[in-house]
């Protein structure tokens, strides 16, 4: 079902009428605020909208229907793993025992949650091949920062303060270099070789006594497994640097490749991707970080500790002085982690392996269909992992229709677009990730749509260039939005 039709909605503020409200709490005594000094009191009330509940509900239901979502249609957004979210996971997070637990409650009141977190850590250790896991980071990028700060602490404790560089392949997510900067480290970009892997010679030349770490996404954002990974890891460790695995693409390797066992020192896991906790229009997520022996002492506090008597507790303040410190309040985004736990339990070890196998099979099938059609360039031959690159470079040279136009035209067909123009190194690139939860019928329909659009680019290029035609809006004036930013309603 596609998002079509002009159903744009008024703003909450435009719906407001003075005096409308739904009373929800008892009226406070008139003198409730008399003890607050006048100079600390707000003048009047904030100008929030005044609505009744029926108007409120219609507003948000109507607004929601302007969104494309996994629950309404295919979402092949490469590198984002937009798979189906089992409803039982949502249900679990809302169980009152989990939802109402206060994060500062004494350990004895939250044994259920602490046990769940501890068990989740064990499962993530097994999946990642790491020795220990922190559940504290709130997102993948937050996990990256956690990892980078641990790497710095590790080198500092060895007196190696000259290690200030992080090597990052040019196909990496932008978060990798941005993370390095936040951790006070300098990024050195490594070019991609013709086969889509890391350029070994450039890599060797960049490695040295100044290298703190190398950040590698494997499989890469081109959907290609780094076949030389064994050599790379050896070279990294030979110069005394550490290996960071960006786990954004974990969906491609569960049960097939365990980064910790293979030699990576640290890795983050995006639970909202692989373990299907909801993306929520962009968040929340969670970014647990697994580490090997070298970095375990530096994990942020507090960790969950299992006592010999089988009870659980949080580490106490300063219990582990080597910890890098806190990256957020409380123990972690537990509500997200409950969903991940439920997902892992439902699938079990064999089910997670099947997830990966089906995700990779579906991506290869879709890639083959597009390759066989000849409609698009497929820059990297050979098997992909969970996602692959297609390109409209030839279409653009022949017709003037760009990848952006094709992406917009897909919206008219009821599909979300793939990730476009990423990685930045691919001309007119599209990164397509079908995930394991789309049926072969959907994969075929999507391939048919892409092939039809390629034909349309030749036959009726203007139709493609002016797409979308049936979405709630036409293309937006992004330049005007940036030139004269309107970032809040002012009535």
């Amino acid at each position: 079902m596609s998002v079509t039709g002009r159903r744009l909605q008024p703003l909450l503020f435009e719906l407001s009428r003075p005096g409308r409200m739904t009373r929800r709490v008892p009226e406070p005594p008139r003198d409730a605020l008399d003890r607050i000094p006048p100079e600390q009191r707000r003048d009047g009330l904030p100008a929030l909208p005044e609505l009744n509940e029926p108007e409120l509900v219609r507003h948000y239901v109507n607004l929601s229907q302007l969104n494309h979502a996994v629950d309404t249609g295919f979402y092949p957004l490469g590198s984002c793993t937009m798979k189906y979210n089992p409803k039982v996971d949502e249900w679990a997070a809302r169980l009152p025992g989990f939802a109402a637990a206060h994060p500062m409650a004494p350990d004895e009141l939250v044994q259920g949650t602490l046990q769940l977190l501890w068990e989740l850590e064990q499962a993530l250790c097994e999946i990642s091949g790491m020795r220990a896991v922190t559940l504290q980071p709130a997102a993948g990028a937050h996990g990256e920062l956690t990892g980078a700060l641990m790497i710095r602490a590790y080198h500092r404790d060895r007196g190696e303060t000259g290690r200030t560089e992080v090597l990052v392949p040019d196909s990496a997510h932008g978060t990798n270099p941005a993370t390095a900067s936040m951790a006070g480290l300098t990024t050195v970009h490594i070019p991609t070789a013709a086969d889509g892997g890391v350029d070994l010679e450039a890599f060797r030349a960049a490695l040295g006594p100044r290298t703190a770490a190398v950040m590698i996404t494997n499989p890469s954002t081109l959907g290609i497994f780094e076949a030389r990974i064994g050599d790379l890891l050896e070279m990294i460790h030979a110069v005394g640097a550490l290996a960071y695995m960006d786990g954004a693409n974990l969906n491609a390797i569960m049960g097939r490749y365990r980064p910790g066992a293979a030699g990576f020192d640290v890795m983050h896991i995006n639970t909202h991707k692989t373990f299907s906790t909801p993306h929520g229009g962009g968040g929340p997520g969670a970014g647990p970080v697994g580490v090997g022996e070298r970095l375990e002492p530096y994990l942020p506090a507090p960790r969950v500790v299992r006592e010999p008597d089988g009870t659980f507790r949080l580490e106490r303040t300063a219990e582990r002085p080597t910890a890098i410190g806190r990256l957020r309040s409380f123990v972690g985004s537990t509500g997200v982690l409950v969903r991940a736990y439920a997902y892992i339990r439902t699938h079990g070890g064999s089910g997670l392996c099947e997830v990966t196998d089906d995700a990779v099979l579906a991506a290869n099938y879709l890639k083959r269909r597009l390759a066989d059609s000849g409609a698009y360039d497929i820059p990297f031959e050979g098997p992909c992992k969970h996602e692959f690159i297609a390109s409209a470079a030839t279409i653009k040279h022949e017709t003037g229709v760009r990848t952006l136009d094709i992406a917009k035209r897909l919206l008219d067909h009821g599909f979300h677009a793939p990730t476009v123009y990423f990685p930045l190194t691919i001309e007119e690139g599209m990164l397509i990730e079908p995930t394991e939860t789309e049926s072969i019928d959907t994969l075929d329909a999507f391939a048919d749509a892409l092939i039809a659009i390629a034909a349309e680019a030749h036959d009726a290029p203007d139709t493609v260039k002016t797409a979308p035609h049936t979405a709630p809006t036409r293309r937006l004036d992004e330049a005007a939005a940036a030139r004269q930013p309107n970032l809040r309603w002012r009535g």
Partner: protein
Amino acid sequence: MTYGPHTDADRARMRAALGIESVDELFADIPLAQRAGGLDLPPPEPESVLVERLRELAARNRVDLASFLGAGVQVHHAPPVVDQMLLRGEWYTAYTPYQPEVSQGTLQSIYEYESLIAELYDLDVVSASHYDGASASAEAALMACRATDRQRVLVSRGVHPHHRETTATYGSGAGLEVVEIPLEAEGEAAGTTDLSALERLLADGGPVAGILAAQPNVLGLLEPMAALAAAAHAAGALFVAVAEPVSLAVLRPPGAYGADIAAGEGQALGIAPQYGGPYLGILACTDSLVRQLPGRLVGMTRDLDGERAFVMTLQAREQHIRREKAASNICTNQALLALAASVWLAALGPHGLRDVAALGAARAASLEAALAAVGAPRPHRGPYLNEFAIRVPNAREVHHRLLERGILAGIPLADLLPDEPSLADCLLVCATEVTRPEDIDLFASALGEEIGR
């Protein structure tokens, strides 16, 4: 597979199209020595069994106590309409609005969130991208450093310790000097930021980029925010207000006392405690700082037909464009939590929000009177809104004994603020509009008995 659609026949069709016998062939590029042979995890669990397991785990948590615990997370009335809206799959199974034409729901909801929070905080620009109050406070400190090109930040000890620790961790990465401002030990202003200590810190040492103070502070007390802002500005520094959002229904907002940046924990706005998250980091600033503001921003624009629409904007600040020169590595945003906050604020409206804050203040005053009457007075004289410290002999032990009587008597300050030894015999307690008068009576009489032992 549990939730996957593929039948064996579907898989066979896909393998045939690829000309492979086994899916193993698709993994042949993994070096042999590094291949894993499956996962040593329990077998798949049928949904009915999983449901029982989860119920049993959740039931092991005790959430039935009469609770007076705040300390950074306050429980408010959650109108059922909020969660009903959040449960729509169109909200929670969408992603970052990369294709704005089919994401106007998320985009408009973020714009509305930006507008609601800007109004509440009396500032111009709001980012919906932050994880929680602690990381938003840390990002605010980094913003102040970028904006002033200075490297020293002063953080009041009245700021929640988790916010302070997170700011120190982020600061260690960026090479900042993070210095704490002590609290007044005695007198009328005891428990609030020590203004003369602040003057000394401003006079000695390097130039200061920003000053962070919290309103209400971690002890529940009201800080002299206008004076702190003036001191910051006199030193050429920015002032960062870490302000609790519900309190802003009745307290002066950050923009009114000259804050340049505001941060805050948005959990109180309709988000369940969930043992720590996911929460919502509030981060707002004045127009002049917008290019230093990390995270996604949504702006109003027009489409080709001239219709009003919304789009992510000013992306040149962000990691996917600027990479190592970005304002932050923030990528995800907290759109679903921002949505919860917006629906919650709109469900209450301005009068309802005022009632929530005022009723919490009234219940807290009843609590103060009841506890003082049984021998647990406040150690501080300054005004508070709905959270305050009480002095109790053997605070930690009394807290533990009350737990056994079904009362969660806030938190021992010896645990929350171990670096404030003068408050070691105190409990920090909180009341909101959902605190029941009968629980206040129960707490007071039980506390009286424990003190009288």
